């Protein structure tokens, strides 16, 4: 199929077509600077405050899927084939307010008003995707939006009240969206290139041809390379439109997750199989980041404080790596070599993540510590998989984030525990071994001493959880109040 240089998306019912776009121009810059559409705000330019929140809609399996994303770190070419909604879209030029907007007015949900358009868009995404959210679901929907004025209570009230007004007509234009072309994108601008292939063979070919290219999945990290580090990216290959990378299958032994599957979708399937992981995934970034970001990106990027990998590693996950020469499979625990260095060879990319299904009697758990519950990067993140044969530990794996230059297993702790009775003495031995496994660093998130002590105490928490002596986490406890 021939590649096109036309980016097409829908805005206010119109099919917008762009050519010769700077491939790293952000959606926020495009809205504010090119269109002078200034309702959407910049608060941080790193996807952490939510003032820039917009909603994108795309057709998936014959259904419109609406999701809030951070426009400040999303590159314009990734809009291709989607409908973009901003705060201005909701009230059609201020004629009449959408129920979400009216509820914010009625409940005094704005004070300075700067964060408000972002909140409105997160609420709108909630409105369209959840007809009766619980308080926890409201909190989660708003986890990526910071407000410094109101103390949030009136915004939560608006989230409850917004369903009371008559439902207005839908804001989407699927017939216009259907007119966007399905070809690959190939854009060149000022000597820099952006490719968005639609097949895995095409992707493999591009990776072989441009082995130094930046692979762009959700852009929740790469976006910051541009907005914060001012890096110039010569060649970008976007994985988001490759059909084969969107597979999400639960088979007899494994969950197979394509590398371009969003964190939101991957986690839903993951939590289905491993309900104990719900809290850690709730605490993983925010909905706009999980909507844009991919599990594949989290794994391949390989940050030592990535929150998915401890659980994946403890579960025994393997990765399918692909290149023009074929594919190979590698254990996640062998994938990371050193700080931000992994086993990918030039021209190779991550195709699939294969997570074993839980066996009978297998316990998998993961714990995260940070200064704030939501949208905070881990000081420490731990995960464990335990199998017992009677009282004896037949198999134990533990992986930690925030404790070393990569996410990695706690091999000495595993050795101290495996084969032993699952009791207090073994716990004590496991705790002591953790101190040999890791020599963490001190930084703005935590001191080395806290990291080690907390990791040991989290092992104790896991012990208590698996011996029936646990008390809830403070978050679960608070929810009952």
């Amino acid at each position: 199929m021939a590649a096109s240089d036309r980016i097409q998306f829908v805005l206010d019912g119109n099919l917008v077509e762009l050519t010769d776009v700077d491939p790293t121009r952000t959606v926020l810059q495009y809205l504010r600077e090119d269109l002078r559409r200034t309702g959407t705000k910049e608060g941080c330019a790193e996807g952490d405050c939510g003032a820039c929140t917009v909603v994108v809609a795309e057709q998936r399996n014959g259904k419109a899927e609406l999701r809030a994303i951070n426009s400040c770190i999303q590159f314009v070419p990734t809009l291709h084939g989607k409908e973009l909604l901003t705060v201005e879209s909701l009230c059609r030029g201020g004629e009449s307010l959408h129920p979400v907007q009216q509820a914010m007015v009625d409940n005094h949900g704005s004070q300075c008003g700067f964060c408000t358009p972002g909140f409105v868009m997160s609420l709108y995404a909630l409105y369209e995707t959840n007809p009766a959210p619980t308080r926890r679901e409201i909190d989660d929907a708003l986890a990526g939006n910071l407000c410094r004025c109101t103390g949030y209570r009136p915004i939560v009230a608006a989230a409850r009240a917004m369903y009371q007004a008559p439902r207005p007509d839908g804001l989407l234009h699927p017939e216009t969206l259907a007119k966007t072309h399905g070809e690959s994108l190939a854009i060149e601008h000022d000597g820099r290139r952006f490719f968005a292939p639609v097949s895995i063979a095409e992707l493999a070919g591009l990776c072989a041809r441009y082995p130094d290219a930046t692979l762009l999945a959700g852009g929740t990290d790469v976006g910051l390379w541009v907005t914060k580090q001012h890096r110039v990216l010569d060649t970008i290959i976007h994985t988001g439109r490759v059909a084969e990378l969107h597979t999400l299958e639960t088979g007899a032994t494994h969950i197979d997750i394509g590398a371009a599957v969003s964190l939101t979708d991957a986690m839903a399937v993951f939590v289905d199989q491993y309900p104990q992981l719900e809290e850690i995934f709730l605490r993983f970034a925010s909905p706009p980041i999980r909507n844009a970001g991919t599990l594949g990106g989290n794994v391949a990027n390989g940050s030592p404080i990535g929150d998915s990998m401890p659980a994946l590693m403890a579960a025994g996950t393997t990765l399918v790596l692909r290149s023009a020469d074929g594919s190979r499979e590698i254990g996640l625990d062998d994938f990371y070599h050193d700080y931000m260095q992994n086993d990918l060879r030039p021209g190779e990319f991550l195709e699939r993540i294969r997570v074993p299904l839980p066996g009978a009697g297998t316990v998998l758990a993961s714990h995260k510590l940070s200064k704030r519950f939501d949208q905070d990067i881990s000081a420490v993140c731990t995960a464990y998989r335990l199998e017992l044969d009677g009282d004896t530990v037949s198999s134990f794996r533990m992986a930690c984030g925030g404790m070393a230059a990569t996410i990695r297993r706690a091999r000495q702790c595993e050795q101290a525990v495996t084969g032993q009775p699952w009791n207090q003495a073994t716990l004590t031995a496991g705790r002591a071994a953790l101190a040999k496994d890791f020599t963490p660093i001190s930084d703005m998130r935590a001191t080395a001493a806290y990291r080690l002590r907390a990791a040991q105490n989290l092992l104790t928490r896991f012990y208590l959880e698996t011996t029936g002596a646990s008390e809830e986490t403070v978050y679960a406890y608070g929810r009952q109040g």
Partner: protein
Amino acid sequence: MRGVVGRALPHDSAVLHVSGTAAYTDDLPEPRDLLHVAVGLSDHAHARIRGIDLDAVIGAEGVVATCIAADIPGDNNCGPIVADEEILASDTALYAGQAIFAVAADTVDRARRAARLAEIDYEPLEAILDPLAAVEKESFVLPTETMTRGDAAAAIEKAPHRVSRRLTLGGQDQFYLEGHIAMAIPQEDGGLLVYSSTQHPDEVQHLVAHAIGRSAKDVVCICRRMGGAFGGKESQAATIACIAAIMAVKTGRSCKLRLDRDDDMVMTGKRHDFVIEYEAGFDDHGRILGVDFMFASRCGISADLSGPVNDRTMFHCDNAYFLENVHITSHRCKTNTVSNTAFRGFGGPQGMHAIEYVIDDIARTLGKDPADVRRRNFYGKTTRNVTHYRQTIEDNILEDLFDKLEADADYRARRDEIRAFNAEHRVLRRGIAMTPVKFGISFTATHLNHGGTEMGQGLYIKVAQVAADELGVTLDRIRINAADTSKVPNASATAASSGSDINGKAVQAACRKIRGRLTEFAARHFSVSEAGIDFAGNVVSIGERELAFEELVGLAWFDRVQMFATGFYRTPKIHYDRDTFSGRPFFYYGYGAAVSEVVVDTLTGEYRLTRVDILHDCGDSLNPAMDLGQVEGGFIQGAGWLTSEELCWNDKGELTTHAPSTYKIPTCSDLPVDWRVELLENAANREDTIYRSKAVGEPPLMLALSVFHALRDAIATDANPLPDLRAPATPEAVLDALVSNGS
């Protein structure tokens, strides 16, 4: 109450906010000749600047001009009170992140990229990076102050019990969602129009005029609204406006400087962090007999507003308690870090944190309920009612308020229930605390005029409500305009919770002049007595006749009646001798109290606010919806200050928490699970404020001291009742306190 005053009306801009049509400075139409400015920052905490090579900057794509200190046409100063802070560092860089040069380019992106290309030759000098090091080296931005009443040393010496402690108390970034921004547009004949996100347009006008070597008449500053400020745009906005203005004058083109969030957090001042030492003597009942405080605050490189901030710390280290024998030492430490500034509470919170810690220590030493010890030390109504700065408290309603909240929140029974819970649980532990707030309003006699700025607090709607009622018209007849120095000159900052008090009264005075003129005209025109004329509901009753308001205005126009007026208000009664720290610095006090309950995980130090009850005094509220918003928002902001918001510097003096990825303000899920907030009813201000309301901007922030002490309550055990909990009480700080406590 009549008309619209006192009604819970929405914010005047609410519809604009939710539809994205409220214009902030960066949303304004850009002049065709606009350039974008970026700043180059110091890499060193303290270094002599041997040379600045900007060749690569000037050669970068899109760059039009650069500017260093020597290029500034006027004064290279942005210090608001003391002229001690350079706009651009000239010879010496005084902190990591200080602006050294500016660059203007055709796009924001190009300006920011170019700003990274400078070659600056530094000669590193020794840096002072924390308050205690500054005290040791006697490095101060302003002289050390002391305040004394009675003989604290003798009282402590004689007291049956004593406690002493050193506290560390973190600072706080304002984290307004809209970062600093200014756009300067050259006007004819040397004039300059500056759009600035500022709480203090008047100061921006004057500092910009000085910086560009013109006089104040040549500069106009306008601010319609800010996307939050919280004190962070009181003095700090001037630096940004000055840089934009200097570049506009240099290039002859419009120039906009919008700081990137990271630069904003690195370059602009925050709430002062403190080291506090105290020693207190007390009796068997927990009554304080004598207390000695040492405050050392990180002021940074210049005085900025640190003088009045630290004065307020000294004024508020009594909070609600009568201190018969007290000695206070206040060091204003000069450090090689960003110059700290105003932040909601303005030094008051730090003083109140100190005395609340003292009270908590006393109660725990004696094994008493801290709420009882608090009550034992409250100011009296007729005796024990003079502050350590010799102001007699005439409006004390605290004890009644405290009692009501204690009952409403079921404090005693819950405290017992929590103790039972803690006895049964190994991992989770709960805590509860009840703390009061007494906060002085109307400090300083220089608030003279109206011209307030809107930062989200609802000042404009409150002022519009006053105007509507005074003129007898409905709210839709009132239009609210931007703060503009060419319309309202010499206004003071919108700060110190003073916005409604001052601007409400000034608008009332202006409206009464207009109404008086209209009344006089109508009486003359229709030959009725002035007493027979009334304004209400857009209708003017003139004897038997009724006229639409605009009809009367039309008739008055033909009669050449002046129908504009200015109003003027100056806070009465306040006087104060700075040399002896005595007098009446405050017109009145705002009161409140809160009960907070937490649950703590003793394995990790994580915690959660499970229930909060608040009772707060807003006088007769001008707008209960706006006031409730201030109480709730202030409380959560205060809770953030004392829990998750941690500012960190590395050993090179660089701020390492300069973005929301690393600096964590509360989110939605941090709200108390069960949150009950009430405004005190039938609480008319005994002083003659606008409709007997009370200022509400700052006092609620300190309600969050209850969160901190609830955490300490959860950590404390009978075995070791005085855990050493630092603020902010991050999970790590809580775990440290638990471990030091032997848990």
